[in-house]
């Protein structure tokens, strides 16, 4: 059952006579028990979607329904129905992770025993118990971010929205965090994750959408999208020590590209041994440094889809 339903949502900002289209006819559905990944470059319109779900912004047109309630008509309901981890780190002042998580749980109306149980569970899962009673002013950015996650996850309700939850978090705890995100969905909550860490999100999201300049470029089941993008292809990735024109493209390869000193050679899966041999030859010729064979990832698909466009936009 769909918990979050956005249909044909359009939102523009006007400032100094210029109109920016932040969301352009966006339609997204998130079911209960589902982790939904929302990907896109900076300024693609991801946080605008988050703020509209919370009722902090009103769409120009379109409908937003959360757990059966119309958020456009009744904007105040948004923040009651969705728990959110905001994109900016919440300044805790002298509050400790434990005390602020407790207040959040109580505000969402769960019993004190349940609050304590959930808080302990989350802190242990994320391995931040040692900072549970340290004042916010003395905490590092990563711990503040993880505390933000706990504040949203302590009493998740029907929908949880996480806006770039892994920023500043160390690699080990990132894995714990993705595990905790999966657990939320297991309990039946609809989870929306806005993130740039597509590679990490790949194994955690069920469905996804790629947003670019306010438009949805692609959406659907993450595994299917990846399978479609990859087909029967694999790739060889290597550090290139020479420009693209020095490489001879093998006849059996699908494509060869050198960008930012990184070489990518794509080929049919059956030709993996040929590719390894080719890699070794190029290294012997001094054209490549270390190389490896890997699967085509969601991130490759993403970069293919919006990468170059976004980069040009960013410069302009």
């Amino acid at each position, binding site marked *: 059952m769909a918990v979050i339903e956005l249909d044909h949502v359009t939102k523009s900002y006007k400032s100094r006579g210029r109109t920016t289209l932040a969301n352009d006819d966006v339609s997204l559905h998130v079911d209960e028990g589902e982790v939904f990944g929302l990907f896109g470059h900076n300024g693609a319109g991801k946080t605008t979607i988050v703020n509209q779900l919370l009722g902090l912004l009103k769409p120009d047109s379109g409908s937003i329904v959360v757990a059966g309630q119309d958020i456009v008509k009744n904007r105040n309901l948004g*923040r009651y129905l969705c*728990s959110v981890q905001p994109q900016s780190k919440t300044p805790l*002042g002298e*509050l400790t992770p434990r005390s602020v998580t407790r207040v959040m749980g109580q505000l969402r109306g769960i019993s004190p025993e349940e609050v304590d149980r959930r808080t302990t569970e989350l802190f242990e899962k994320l391995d931040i118990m040692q900072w549970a009673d340290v004042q916010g002013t003395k905490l590092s950015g990563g711990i503040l971010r993880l505390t933000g996650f706990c504040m949203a996850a302590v009493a998740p309700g029907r929908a949880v929205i996480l806006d770039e939850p892994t920023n500043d978090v160390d690699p080990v705890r990132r894995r714990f965090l993705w595990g905790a995100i999966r657990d939320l969905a297991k309990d039946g909550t609809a989870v929306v994750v806005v993130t740039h860490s597509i590679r990490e999100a790949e194994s955690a999201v069920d469905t996804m959408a790629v947003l670019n300049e306010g438009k949805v470029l692609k959406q659907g089941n993450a595994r299917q999208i990846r399978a479609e993008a990859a087909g029967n292809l694999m790739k060889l990735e290597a550090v290139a020590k020479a420009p693209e024109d020095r490489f001879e493209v093998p006849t059996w390869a699908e494509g060869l590209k050198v960008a930012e000193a990184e070489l990518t050679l794509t080929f049919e899966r059956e030709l993996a041994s040929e590719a390894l041999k080719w890699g070794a030859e190029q290294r012997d010729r001094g054209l490549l440094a270390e190389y490896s064979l890997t699967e085509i990832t969601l991130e490759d698909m993403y970069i293919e889809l919006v990468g170059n466009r976004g980069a040009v936009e960013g410069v302009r």
Partner: protein
Amino acid sequence: MSGSNLKYVIELQARKQGSYLVVFSIIMIVIALGVAIGFSYLMSSPEGGGMLYLATGAPTIVLIMTALVTVPMQNAGAKMTGYMDFVKSLPVSRKLFLIADVGIWAMVTVPAIAVSVFVAHLIFEPGYAVSWTIIPAFVLMVLSCFAIGYGYSFVIPAEPAMALSQLIAFISLMFSPINFPIERLPGWVQAVHEVLPIYHMAEVMRASLAHTTFEAQPISYIMLAAWTVVGFFGAVRFLERA
């Protein structure tokens, strides 16, 4: 439900600021004593009516320094660090946030006002005569002062609000009829103060602390009530706005 939620919002706000609130209570005591005692050195003979002006002006200065200078600085900072966005995303009525915060900061002013009045009385015996009207008057002054403080710091963008708070601190200390009679000011400044809330706050405070010497005109109460409505209207509009 909203009663217990208010408790949690107070807990959130009070614990976030924690020891800072204690430090501020102490700073306010120092400022109040500074006005009552320090300004007395400016006068050639610290006796009689002049001293009573200072002694009854100090509590008003405390309220202004807290509600119109410190709190707006805090709010501007909270806006810039994204804390206001967090507050707006909480699953509670946003008015509770305003009620909780005004309550907390009003408490910060109480020790300063009490201590300064008590110490000034011990040292100078300026002629206090506390009327029962001090309680409703204090409530009205607190409400109007905080309404204006929250109102302007929410409605105006953070940086100009910070600048304005500094201007208010300077003007209220030097160019406001809090510590001296309004007649000493040039006519046009008097006219401006008739509209602004500072003069009326001082009048109401004086009438409450020394009712045998001073009397506040009904217009002062009306002006404060009007500023309360305008200020809270602006603050609530900012909070309720998406």
